[in-house]
């Protein structure tokens, strides 16, 4: 078993939260720093295995690309899709300003 010396800092957690698009509060950052360090410490046991000659598995069953004929079929009516939107405008999803 390898000695575990992984350290997660508060800055790491803030950086990851930015990638994940979550605005964490201060107490959450503190808790998640400890949580992630604990879980990643446990996961460290994977590094004790030699996997140099092992192929990765991304899928349990050997299903390769699934093709179909490129035929146009009816899909969701835009009006119907917009009916559950938080905000809509002129047949589109309305979001806050994107371009300055």
């Amino acid at each position, binding site marked *: 078993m390898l000695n575990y010396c992984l350290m997660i800092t508060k800055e*790491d*957690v803030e950086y*990851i*939260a930015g*990638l*994940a*698009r*979550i*605005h*964490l*509060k201060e107490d*959450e950052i503190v*808790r*998640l720093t400890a*949580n*992630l360090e*604990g*879980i*990643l410490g*446990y*996961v460290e*046991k*994977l*590094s004790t*295995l030699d*996997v140099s000659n*092992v*192929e*990765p*598995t*991304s*899928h*349990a*069953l050997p*299903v390769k690309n*699934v093709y*179909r004929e490129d035929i146009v079929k009816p899909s*969701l009516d835009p009006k*119907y*899709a917009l*009916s*559950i*939107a*938080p*905000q809509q405008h002129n047949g589109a*999803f309305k*979001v*806050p*300003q*994107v371009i*300055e």
Partner: protein
Amino acid sequence: MNLNELTAHEILDLIKSGKTTPADVHDSVNKAVQNTDKKVKAYVRTFDVNDHDLNTPKAGAAFPIPIAIKDNISINGKETTCCSKILAGYKPLYDATVITKLKNAGSLFVGTANMDEFAFGSSTENSCFGPSRNPWNLDCVPGGSSGGSAAAVASHETIWALGSDTGGSIRQPASFCGVVGVKPTYGRVSRYGLIAFASSLDQIGPITKDVKDSAILLNIISGYDEMDSTSINTPVPDYTKALTGDVKGLKIGIPKEFFIEGLDAEVKKSIEDAIEVFKKKGAEFIEVSLPHSEYSVATYYILATAEASSNLARFDGVRFGLRKQPSTLRKSPIVDMFEETRDAGFGAEAKRRIMLGTYSLSSGYYDAYYLRAQKVRTLIKNDFDKVFTKCDAILGPTAPTTAFKIGEKSDDPLSMYLSDIYTIAVNLAGIPAMSLPCGFSKAGLPIGLQIISKNFGEETMLRIAHTYEQATDWHTKKATLQ
């Protein structure tokens, strides 16, 4: 005997012989929900079944059987939230394929069942609606994440239910609640309309009062679906035909790694007793080894959270569900909206998993975590392939303990993750497995026996389970609701 306490196949027999009516069946379940759900809290919402549903004669295999649906399976026009605030008010615009199949079969939908938020958990304590209670001891959790579905079946607030299983989320609550739960082979049941947690592991399956009901429900929901490109195009057998009551000559493997430190003594004893039952029925046992078992929880928590962080990126306040309008400008108007919507909408465990998954997929860590875990997944899968050249099925406990107390593990994510130690490897390998009742602890809590089979080995698995059920009466015990 109240109708709501019967199995689906018993009710179907009564209907056929004219001894009861669809309205009586529906009333009986409805009364149970009204009387019992205050205590159990299995449902997050219930539906009105109208006279049309009850009086239109249907030839379907599930008419007029009431069913509970886990809150992550889309029902057209009915609020479906994964028990998360971020999906509050969200009404899907289409039916999941399993719902279409159930409607065609004449199912009566009782309501949507509680779950851990986005199926992240093993207790239902992570639901934004609060936890469900175990019908055998109301101070205990029903297990999770399909805890509401399992509790509804065990408290007879439905006849049967659907759950989903990503790392044990059907089998562990079935074990904790003393009911039958089946995780089919990956690809056996369409995932179209199942709100995704970890797409390479998720599978919908039945939670029922006995093995025959699981076979009937599996008949209804299985099959290829062009809307799910990971569903497998192989014929669906009639699973009820597999229930022959005979296991003579079958070879069953017992993995030595399953009987380790952490396995509760009462659970261990019940599994050993079950092995004796099978020996009397003519099954042969061999010791097998799954040497990479101890790595399955670590592998799972890298792969499942990575997939979850990617799948949950869609909840951004743009197209459906919750949107928070930021009050002050921090980064930019749109990024602030994303970040504050996701902060307000996701609970603590969802944030933990999204963060862990984002970390292991991030630049510089991908090879060390995600890619390495995918390789260990191969080793875990190979272990099973090897074992199944020597035996027809694997037998062991579903969970290391019986149901734990509400609050007991909620501050310790790792100890909660380890309660899935016997179920997780099955999802990584894609193979089918099920849990069925095999005894009770001295405290009166149910114990689950897990049967694992090879890909598309559901018939052998159900046959073994049914044989055990015929020889025992655990499945006939009624929950105390205290």
